[in-house]
């Protein structure tokens, strides 16, 4: 079979639109599913099969905004399963440290032991998990796989001023207790294990109540329990493309501007309406609700253009989470590949 065109897409504009874009209409989403099948467009002279060189040529990453805990970037030229695999790995397979075992020495507060232990587990711990090993089941704790925190809070009434001290046990009261040579593992002061935030309330106390607890942190992944997930959210969406017909002018243009709750549209000097901030579009479809506008405003999303946003809980930076996710995936591939190679022999 001869494939005339390989990179320029399908010649038929309707089919090309179907291939590359998801369309939103008043009644719902059209062409939501992508076609990955190699022979899907052979009859119209387009080669849909995979080619690594072509992939590398079309593939692009572009960082939109970055702070240590939030990263937004575009990934262009990949298929949905790749984006989805990365998202799934970031959520459930990138390891972090979290409190797993809690030894309660004294707890005279009104919070039950098990509730307290659960609350402690949820506190994000700021420590580089790559420095630790996974704790093997039914093995002793070692300095390489366990971190110990101590929580010792006593609530009292100051005899002179009558002020209540330690009314709330906060995450800053969790004190790291280094074992063996753990102190050498963290030479810099800012790398030392501590709760991500200082002001997470653990429980309220009244004068006379005491808690004395030892917490053991272990390394694990989000699939075991969500407390080990390194991200608050890791999500992607498709790049919106909004096109407005020339025929919308004057009063109608102003009406369209008013319709959009996200203020996506602008009126150009020529009087034409353009989507100036398409990334703000939430796909609410308010602009096409009126049938009069539905013909003239087109809302589409580009099928292979993903906008990722990774919000970290703090143990790892967002960019590190993404890099780790890729590493974990390649490792997974290697394990499966190795096993397949064994099948051959």
């Amino acid at each position, binding site marked *: 079979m001869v494939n005339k065109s390989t990179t320029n897409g399908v010649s038929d504009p309707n089919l090309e639109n179907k291939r590359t874009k998801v369309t939103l209409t008043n009644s719902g989403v059209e062409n939501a599913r992508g076609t990955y099948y190699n022979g899907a467009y052979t009859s119209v002279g387009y080669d849909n099969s995979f080619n690594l060189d072509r992939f590398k040529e079309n593939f692009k990453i572009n960082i939109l905004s970055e702070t240590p805990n939030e990263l937004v970037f575009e990934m262009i030229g990949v298929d949905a399963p790749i984006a*989805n695999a990365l998202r799934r790995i970031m959520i459930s397979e990138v390891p972090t440290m979290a409190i797993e075992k809690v030894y309660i020495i004294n707890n005279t507060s009104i919070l039950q032991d098990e509730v307290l232990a659960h609350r402690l587990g949820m506190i994000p711990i700021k420590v580089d998990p790559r420095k630790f090993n996974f704790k093997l089941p039914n093995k002793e704790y070692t300095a390489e796989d366990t971190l110990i925190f101590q929580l010792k809070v006593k609530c009292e009434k100051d005899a002179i001023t009558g002020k209540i001290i330690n009314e709330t046990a906060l995450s800053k009261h969790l004190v790291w207790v280094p074992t063996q040579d753990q102190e050498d593992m963290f030479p810099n002061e800012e790398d030392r294990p501590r709760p991500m935030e200082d002001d997470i309330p653990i429980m309220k106390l009244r004068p006379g109540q005491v808690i004395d607890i030892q917490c053991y942190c272990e390394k694990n992944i989000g699939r075991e329990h969500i407390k080990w997930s390194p991200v608050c959210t890791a999500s992607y969406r498709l790049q919106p493309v909004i096109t407005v017909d020339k025929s919308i002018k004057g009063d109608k243009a102003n009406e369209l501007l008013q319709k959009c709750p996200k203020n996506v549209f602008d009126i150009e000097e020529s009087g034409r309406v353009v989507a100036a901030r398409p990334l703000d579009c939430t796909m609410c479809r308010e602009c096409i609700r009126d049938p009069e506008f539905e013909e003239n405003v087109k809302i589409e999303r580009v099928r292979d253009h993903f906008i990722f946003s990774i919000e970290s809980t703090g143990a790892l930076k967002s960019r590190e989470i993404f890099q780790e996710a890729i590493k974990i995936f390649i490792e997974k591939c290697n394990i499966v590949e190795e*096993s397949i190679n064994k099948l051959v022999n």
Partner: protein
Amino acid sequence: MNAPDRFELFVLPDGAKKVTMVRDTKIPNASMFTILKEDHTIGNLIRMQLIADQDIIFAGYRMPHPLEHNVNIRIQTNNNTTPLESIQKSMECLSREFTSLENSFIEQVQKKRNVADQYI
């Protein structure tokens, strides 16, 4: 109580093979691969990579049971190749894709560090 250990979802039991292959006895060039302790993350990805291969007639995946972390991948190829060869090729492609993905991410991140210098 009788709940299975949570790590059973992703720890391969001792002596078990990660991937096994069963040949289809009725259809030529068809096989069923079972990958233990993996899920939609890798199943869907392999399927996508397989059906983009020109020598593939059929490729699909399923998770037979939602509580057991195993995926089945069924492949049927034409006479140019075998299911085993095609899955090998796909896995190699995937590793390369992700390596190039990683490289361009690192490149962009480095660039960002130079331009904006928001932190580090």
